[in-house]
C-alpha cells in the first residue's frame, strides 16, 4: 500500500492563547508546536500499522514553512518513511487542500489519510476538500480501518451511532479517536528521522478563499456561586428560577 498522511502542526494543548497586532494575529511567542493529535495519534499510527502488515510505504505531507520541520521530523521518528513539505504558509483550508491534492494526484497513492480536525482552527475541512479536488470518495470520522486487497472496511461515526462501510482504493479518510493507539517514538526512531528524506516542493498557484480578520477571547466567567452540599434543593431552585436551564 502506498499511503499519504497529512500532518499539520498545532499549538501544544496547554498553550496560552493570546493575540497581537490589535487582535489580528495569533501570538506565537512562547508557543510550543506539536503534531496535531488527530494526525499523529490516529491517522499516522494506523497508516504505519497497515504498512507493517501489508507492506508498502508511508509518506507524510505538510503545507508549511521551514519552521514546521521539527514537527515533520517527529512524524518521521514515529515511523513514516519519507516526508514532503509544500513550502508555503497554510493560508486557509482550501489552499492547503489544493496543495495536497496537486501533490497526491501525481503520486498514485492508495489512500490519503488526515486527522478529523486540527485543534487550532477545528475546521475539519481539508479531508473533504482533498477528496473533492481529486474526485475520490471521502470516509469521514473513521474509528476503525481494515484493508483487504483493494477494498477497505471502515467504521465511521454517524449521528447517533456507527456506520460500517466498504470503499475501494483510492480514497480519502479522516481519522477519529479509536483508530489506533498513540506511539511514543524511541531513540532509534528519533536518530533515523534525522536522515530520512524530506522533500521540499514549491506550492502550486492558488488563492485563499477565506481570511481571519480578527480574534477575541471569551469574557471571563463571573464568580462561581457555591451551594452547600447539604442543600441540593437550593441548587435545583437556582437552576430552575435563576439560570432557567431546567
Amino acid at each position, binding site marked *: 500500500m502506498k499511503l499519504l498522511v497529512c500532518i499539520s502542526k498545532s499549538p501544544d494543548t496547554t498553550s496560552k492563547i493570546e493575540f497581537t497586532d490589535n487582535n489580528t494575529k495569533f501570538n506565537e511567542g512562547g508557543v510550543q508546536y506539536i503534531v496535531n493529535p488527530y494526525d499523529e495519534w490516529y491517522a499516522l499510527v494506523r497508516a504505519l500499522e497497515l504498512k507493517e502488515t501489508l507492506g508498502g510505504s508511508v509518506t507524510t505531507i505538510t503545507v508549511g514553512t521551514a519552521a514546521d520541520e521539527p514537527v515533520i521530523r517527529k512524524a518521521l521518528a514515529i515511523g513514516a518513511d519519507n516526508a514532503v513539505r509544500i513550502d508555503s504558509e497554510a493560508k486557509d483550508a482550501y489552499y492547503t487542500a489544493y496543495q495536497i491534492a496537486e501533490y497526491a494526484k501525481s503520486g498514485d497513492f492508495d489512500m490519503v489519510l488526515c486527522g478529523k480536525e486540527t485543534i487550532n482552527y477545528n475546521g475539519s*475541512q481539508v479531508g473533504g476538500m482533498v477528496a*473533492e479536488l481529486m474526485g475520490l470518495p471521502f470516509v469521514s470520522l473513521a474509528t476503525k480501518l481494515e484493508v483487504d486487497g483493494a477494498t477497505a472496511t471502515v467504521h465511521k461515526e454517524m449521528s447517533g451511532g456507527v456506520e460500517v462501510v466498504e470503499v475501494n482504493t483510492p480514497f480519502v479518510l479522516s481519522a477519529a479517536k479509536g483508530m489506533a493507539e498513540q506511539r511514543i517514538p524511541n531513540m532509534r526512531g528519533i536518530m533515523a528521522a534525522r536522515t530520512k528524506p524530506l522533500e521540499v516542493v514549491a506550492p502550486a498557484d492558488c488563492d485563499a478563499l477565506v481570511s481571519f480578520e480578527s480574534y477575541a477571547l471569551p469574557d471571563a466567567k463571573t464568580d462561581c456561586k*457555591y451551594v452547600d452540599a447539604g442543600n441540593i434543593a437550593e441548587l435545583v431552585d437556582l437552576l430552575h428560577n435563576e439560570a432557567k436551564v431546567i
Partner: protein
Amino acid sequence: MSVLVYIDTLNGSIAKNAMEAVYYGSKIGSTTVVTNGTIDEGALAELGKYGAQKVLIHRGLSSNDSSQLTNLVVAAAEAVSAETIVFSLDLTGRSVASRVSAKLKAGLVVGAIDLPAADGTVKVNVFSGKAYGNVKVNTAKKVIAITPNSIGIEAADGSASVEEFSADCGTAGIRVKEVQKQEGDVLLPEAELVVSAGRGLKGPENWGIVEDLAKVLGAATACSRPVSDIGWRPHHEHVGQTGLAIRPNLYIAAGISGAIQHLAGVNGSKVIVVINTDPEAPFFKAADYGIVGDAFEVLPKLTEEIQKLKAQN
C-alpha cells in the same frame, strides 16, 4: 439574496440543529431547503415556521455519501441561484460542506456561532473553544456551517412549499454494510442538557448515578478523556480539546478536575455546574455554580430534587 440550506432528514424527522440551520438561512435571505430521502411532506412544510420558503426533496437518493450529496447541493444551488449555502455542522454537514466549498470554489466558514456581522464577517470558535475568530469570505459565493446550539430559534406562522427535485448525483463510492445505533436517547453533540463525569467516579460500575440524573433531566451523558481512554465509557462520550466540543445550555461535571484540555470542549456551555470534593479543583474557576462535595452523595440527591421539581410542574 437567495440562500440554500442543506439538512439531513434520513432518519425521517427534523432535528433541532436542522431547524437552526434553516432559521439561520432565513435571517440572511430568501431560503430554500434541500434534503433527500423519504421524510413526510408535512414535516418538511413545517420548516416554513423557521423561515423556509420552499423545500426541495430528492426522493430518489437515500444515501448520505458525501460525493452524492455534494452533487445534490450544487445542483439545487444552481437551480435557485443561491449565493450562500448553509449547513449544520453535524457529522454529515461537516464533510458535505467542505466538498461543496471545493467544488464551487466558494469560501467556507466552519463552526459559525452567530449571524454574519454588518461587515460580512462571521464569528467562529477557534483553538477548540479557547477563542473566537471573525472570518471573512473572499468569494462571491459563500458556504457557512453553523455549530449546533449556537443560535436561539423562534417559530412563527408559516408553511413552506414542498417540491420534488431530482439531480444526477453520480454513484456512491461508499457502500454501507451495517448501521450500529448508539444506546441512549439523547445525542451528545446536539444535547441541551449534559451530565458528565470523570475519574473521580472511580470505576465504570459507578456510572448508574450519572445515568439516573441524565434520565430525569432528559440529558445526554459525557465524560473526560481518561475515562474513555481506559474504557470506562465509550469514545463518543469524550468531550474536550481532543474529543467533542459541545455547547449545551447546562453542563453538570462531577469528579472532573477541569484541565485546560477538558475546558476547551465545554466552555461554550451556557451554565456550568461543578461537583468536586477538592475545593481547589480548577474547574470551579470556570463554573457558574459549584458544590464542594462527594459526587456519590450529591448526584443521587440532585436526581431526587429534580424529580420533585418535575412532579410539581
